[in-house]
């Protein structure tokens, strides 16, 4: 058998695309690094075919227990405000996305990343590496324990500071659902001067901000923030059999 599977009447789901007025543009002039990197030509529409509606199976074998607790590394406890971050991964139809790999990374409480390029004069924490991973449960839920990241300066403009944030990377079921984003904290005074936050269209910015969750706050232990993540959903077109009737 050599690569010629034919199925003339194969009908596949189509993943809905958010309106451009609510999506982050690839380039944004106030974010200087986009100047030489963001493509300048209009992208070509690629209708969803088999390659786009499938995606890799990545899950529990990528996650170990310590990946959901970032507050303990190298035999000691990270410094900072302990927080529980939790929420659900849904698609745009409101369906939970189970078994989805969620990868997170963040700065320490002082706003410093454990990365060779980050050398601003804030201390590293020997007990914090800033890496977490979790797989959503059958109802699409995730949660991890970490410390609240600090704000940090960067070179975009004079006295530029990034608001506190946690980087998130998500796989759904399909290539089309892939998402890399950043979660913010409520009422951050640095929002106004941050071009990465402000690149998000105003009407969608609230979607990037977590909610303080008093109910999940743990007495004498940790504050809690809730953030639900919405991936693209489908138009619910059912699969049709091909001529062979050979469909899983």
């Amino acid at each position, binding site marked *: 058998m050599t690569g010629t599977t034919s199925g003339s009447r*194969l009908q596949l789901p189509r993943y809905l695309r958010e309106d451009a007025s609510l999506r*982050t543009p690839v380039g944004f002039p106030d974010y200087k690094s986009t100047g030489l990197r963001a*493509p300048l030509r209009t992208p070509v529409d690629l209708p969803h075919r088999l390659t786009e509606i499938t995606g890799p199976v990545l899950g529990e074998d990528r996650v170990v227990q310590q990946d959901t607790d970032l507050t303990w590394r190298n035999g000691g406890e990270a410094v900072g405000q302990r927080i529980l971050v939790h929420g659900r991964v849904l698609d745009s139809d409101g369906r939970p996305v189970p078994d989805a790999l969620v990868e997170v990374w963040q700065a320490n409480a002082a706003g410093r990343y454990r990365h060779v390029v980050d050398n601003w004069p804030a201390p590293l924490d020997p007990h914090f590496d800033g890496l977490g991973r979790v797989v959503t449960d059958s109802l699409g839920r995730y949660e991890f324990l970490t410390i609240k990241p600090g704000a940090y300066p960067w070179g975009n403009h004079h006295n530029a500071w990034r608001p506190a944030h946690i980087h998130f990377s998500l796989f759904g079921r399909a290539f089309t659902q892939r998402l890399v984003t950043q979660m913010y904290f409520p009422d951050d005074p640095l929002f106004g001067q941050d071009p990465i936050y402000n690149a998000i269209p105003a009407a969608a910015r609230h979607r990037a901000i977590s909610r303080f969750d008093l109910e999940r706050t743990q007495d004498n232990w940790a504050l809690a923030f809730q953030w639900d993540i919405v991936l693209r959903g489908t138009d619910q077109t059912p699969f049709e059999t091909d001529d062979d009737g050979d469909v899983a």
Partner: protein
Amino acid sequence: MTYDPLDVPADPATPFQPRSGQRGSGFLTDPLRLGTTPSATVGPYLAIGLTWPDGQWAAAEGTEGGIWIRGRVFDGAGDVVPDAMLETWQADPDGGFPSPEDPRGASSHPGFRGYARVQTIDPPGEFGIHTLKPGRVPDGEGGLQAPHIDVSVFARGLLDRVVTRIYFADEAEANAEDVVLQGLSADQRATLLATPTEDGYRFDVHLQGERETVFFAV
């Protein structure tokens, strides 16, 4: 009109259950239309969260027929981008996908991951993916697509991923029949063609400039 992604039914009463082993479930409630979460750049520190020791092995080391696809990413000044990440997704040599979402059933190449994640770390700013050459895949319009690999490029300075496809310069006949390539000019097509090397292919990405790679809206 905006949709609030937090405006969903309350959490179920049962606690979070990691590694439930269950897959899939029906609608949580009646269908809702939720606004999708906006993307953001991976930033300069993506290596902390997204480095996989086995990232380059879409096909495991030693797999018969394995090829290396190597290349670099260039910015609008022609400089090598030293902090990009590429992810690739593709069919196996028989045109099947190692994904439960493929309605035609299981891939005939057990163990083939079909997915790779690599970074362009300086020097020399080159990525390398070990994989199998993909087969042809139905295009849903009665024809077959030419062998291709879907590619996502992430980097500081890109607020969303950009998506392109690798095709193969030595598949002229299949390429001529490909529904995606047919919609492009000759110059555009040329930006998507990986060229044969000693142990596989070379494919460079040009984010901007005269040779700007064709990127796709998916």
